[in-house]
């Protein structure tokens, strides 16, 4: 019984991973962005959001990915960024607090609007909540100098 339930869970997990196949084309696209130097541009646009959270430019790409398509995809990009060793554990935590509260803004807002809720109101509530808690955690864990040092070191 228990084994069968575990097996069913395994299968649905496996299907979930299969459904993520388009991470591969996404990563090809990101690699092109990186190699062509466009990524720096993208990160620059994200600065108004990153600076108040005391995050360096390297956080720009996972932030865009998480906000636009979702935490699973954002986490995919995040794992990659973390492996490159560009962000500290505290910086990753601040980013995940923000992204955890506010992510996949396009898909999830459309879904709620489709079922008759006020999507714009919901997205505003979410963004404000994410900003407040992300800001709070960054003040608590990241020193004021950190973002600047990281930037200078990059």
């Amino acid at each position, binding site marked *: 019984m228990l084994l069968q339930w575990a097996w069913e869970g395994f299968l649905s997990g*496996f299907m979930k991973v299969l459904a993520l196949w388009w991470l591969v084309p996404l990563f*090809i696209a*990101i*690699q092109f962005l990186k190699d062509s130097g466009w990524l720096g541009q993208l990160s620059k646009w994200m600065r108004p959001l990153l600076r108040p959270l005391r995050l360096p430019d390297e956080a720009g790409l996972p932030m865009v990915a998480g906000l636009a398509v979702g*935490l*699973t995809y954002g986490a995919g990009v995040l794992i990659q960024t973390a492996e490159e060793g560009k962000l500290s554990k505290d910086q990753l935590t601040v980013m995940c607090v923000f992204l*955890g509260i506010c992510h996949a803004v396009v898909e999830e807002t459309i879904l709620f609007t489709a079922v008759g809720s006020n999507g714009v109101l919901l997205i505003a509530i979410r963004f404000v909540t994410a900003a407040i808690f992300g800001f709070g955690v960054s003040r608590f864990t990241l020193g004021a100098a950190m973002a600047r040092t990281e930037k200078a070191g990059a």
Partner: protein
Amino acid sequence: MDLAATTKRGVVSGIKVLWELAKVIVPAMVVINVLDKTGVLHYLTEWLGPVMGVFGLPGESALVLVTANFVSFYGGLATIVALALPFKQTTILAAMMMINHAAISETALVAKAGARGSWVLAIRTVAMVLVGLILNWVMP
């Protein structure tokens, strides 16, 4: 820029990340399915019911938060639709489940990426409760 080399590096890192995600998502789904089938989620919903009054919500709306957190975002959304509550209550519930959902798999992912998973989960839960309370208070 070498097109072939760039494409190849993209494919390699894409597959590598898919594998890393699989190592988190598959065990999470096993745990979730066992919790569901053993009836643990049912008890959790019954236990949470009376607490929902704090947010101006009826007891059965606990099902939305439990489903959204332990099953999936879509499950929570479907439950909200099925409950067909008034606008204010729907908005409160929707905001709460949008802030905190898929607790098991998303926390595992965040931890896998190298952040402090328990912090992120704790803060999201606190944010969910506060937003629920504030909305119930300020919404007409």
